């Protein structure tokens, strides 16, 4: 009997290991999709330039008003011209891009953390816990989010970047929590969770070590797509004047100069580069996100 048992074909251990990690599958998918790879390279380049150059830039010099060169069009000295205060647009563009991206990332990570925690708890424990959490999330769904963010921004005392991130995160975690909850709900019905319970593994460990790794691809996809969305919302709010405070210029700040019809019509160098940069970054991140989404769904993989 024993001999018969051990004789079965078993995986050879020494054979070359195929990579099975979520990240390596995702990487393969991006490399397969030339456009996504291009998007990744382009985004990488933009980020390297933005973060690299902003280290070298003297921010004080950029924000210093220079009345001798107000609204000057692009020239050798100011590659992208200057604004109403004679400040260099290119420098503002780079600092703005850095701030927009960093803050978008912070909001994404914070909402990710909140959404993940809440979603995992609601989905794993179910029952009354789930009920209460879902009631709260349902309530958030009926809120006119944009307006409330604007109101909060207006009434926040000593308003600064951290407040902004907190206010945004307060309203934007619910979508993620819902997604994670529904996936956790499905996952906890699987026997490996029951098995862990019977093996004496504590609940928190099951949530983190067993369930969470199985959600990793969904989380990565969701965070990527969210990053693009958050950069959009941030710059949009800043455009309206209710986003980042003036001490922290964002891409939205540059675009907001276009509220002046004269700037919009005649001084394209002030607002157009920032608009296009937002557009390019969003397109890149979204494209990467879509490729990751395909990687997460085995049926849609390219290879």
């Amino acid at each position, binding site marked *: 009997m024993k001999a018969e048992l051990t004789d079965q074909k078993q995986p050879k251990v020494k054979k070359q290991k195929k990579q099975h990690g979520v990240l390596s599958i995702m990487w393969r998918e991006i490399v397969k999709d030339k456009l996504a790879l291009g998007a990744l390279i382009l985004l990488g380049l933009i980020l390297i330039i933005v973060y690299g150059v902003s280290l070298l830039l003297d921010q004080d010099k950029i924000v210093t008003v220079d009345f001798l060169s107000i609204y000057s069009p692009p020239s050798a000295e100011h590659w992208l011209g200057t604004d109403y205060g004679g400040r260099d647009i290119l420098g503002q563009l780079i600092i703005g891009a850095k701030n927009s991206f960093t803050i978008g990332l912070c909001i994404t990570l914070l909402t990710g953390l909140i959404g993940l925690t809440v979603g995992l708890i609601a989905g794993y424990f179910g029952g009354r816990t789930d009920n209460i959490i879902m009631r709260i999330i349902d309530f958030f769904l009926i809120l006119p989010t944009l*307006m409330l963010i604007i*109101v909060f921004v207006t*009434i926040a005392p000593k308003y600064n970047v951290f407040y902004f991130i907190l206010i945004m995160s307060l309203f934007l975690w619910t979508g993620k929590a819902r997604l994670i909850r529904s996936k956790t709900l499905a996952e906890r019905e699987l026997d490996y969770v029951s098995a862990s319970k019977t093996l004496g593994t504590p609940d928190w460990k099951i949530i983190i070590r067993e369930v969470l790794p199985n959600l990793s691809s969904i989380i990565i996809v969701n965070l990527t797509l969210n990053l693009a969305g958050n950069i959009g919302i941030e710059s949009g709010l800043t455009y309206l004047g209710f986003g980042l405070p003036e001490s922290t210029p964002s891409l939205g700040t540059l675009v907001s100069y276009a509220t002046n019809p004269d700037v*919009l019509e005649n001084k394209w160098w002030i607002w157009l580069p920032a608009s296009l940069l937002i557009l390019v970054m969003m397109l890149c991140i979204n494209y990467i996100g879509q490729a990751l989404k395909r990687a997460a769904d085995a049926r849609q993989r390219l290879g």
Partner: protein
Amino acid sequence: MLKFILRRILVMIPQLFILSILIFLLAKAMPGDALTGQLASNPKMDAQTLHELKQKLGMYDPYYVQYARWIKGLLHGNLGMSIIHQTPVTSLIAGKMWNTVLLGAAVLILSYLIAIPLGIIGGRWTDTWADKMIVGYNYLTYATPLFIFALLMLFIFGFVLGWFPTSGSVDIRVENGTFAYYMSKLNHLILPALSGAIVSTTVTIQYLRNEIIDTKIKDFVKTARAKGVSESKVYTRHIFRNSLLPIAAFLGYDIVSLIGGSVFLESIYGYPGIGQLFLTSIMQRDFSVVTALVMISGLATLIGTLLSDIILSAVDPRIRIE
């Protein structure tokens, strides 16, 4: 079905109540009420009259009294006075409301007009060049933030090409009620509505396209083909009917996203509606207007989701069980 709607409405009531408390507290928390602001600008206003005026308006009453008064007013359709404009908030909002409703309706209609044909083409002729164009279009519009897109549209069609007016909802020189007046209104509407519509087509196109692709290979469609039904009839009689119905359910959610969108659209196109009123009011600290607008938007969001849930449950009975 009726039970489902009733229960759904019942759930709404506590939500509405909490929303009203939240908004009331926010209004109270707003720094610098409008009266204090007048202290500097209005020479007739001194600290004493200000104090008396505040007392008269009940600004020193306990919060719950103020809340009760506010709710009572709300239920009577009285949203308070705009302190800046010295007019009832209701009439201030009513004046702008129709512009926003008009814009919203135009956005919705245009977005369906664009999305449904594109979704059908993409679903029916999958992987043709037309489908690939549509998928590309979807990527583009999904990634583009509304305010950037609207700004670019305004720049290109409003300023560079000069095809459309760049601000306002109607030419003030034309007489109210004439044919020219309505044409002017329409002319002012096209650009903002188109900007809003194009950006909001993504979900509908994607849903429709996927749905048609999925339905195409279902057994009942194969049966229809096997019976010898012509290809075009397979689509019109069997596939579209199944795929188009759920689209109706997006209506409510679209209304929800329109509320946020109108703030951007109206601010960019200088279109006098609710969104613009909200922005100017909040900058002028005219909080009775802000409060009323947030409450109305909350109500609209609530009704929007309710509408979608009801349509969805009418179309798909499985949802009601939940």
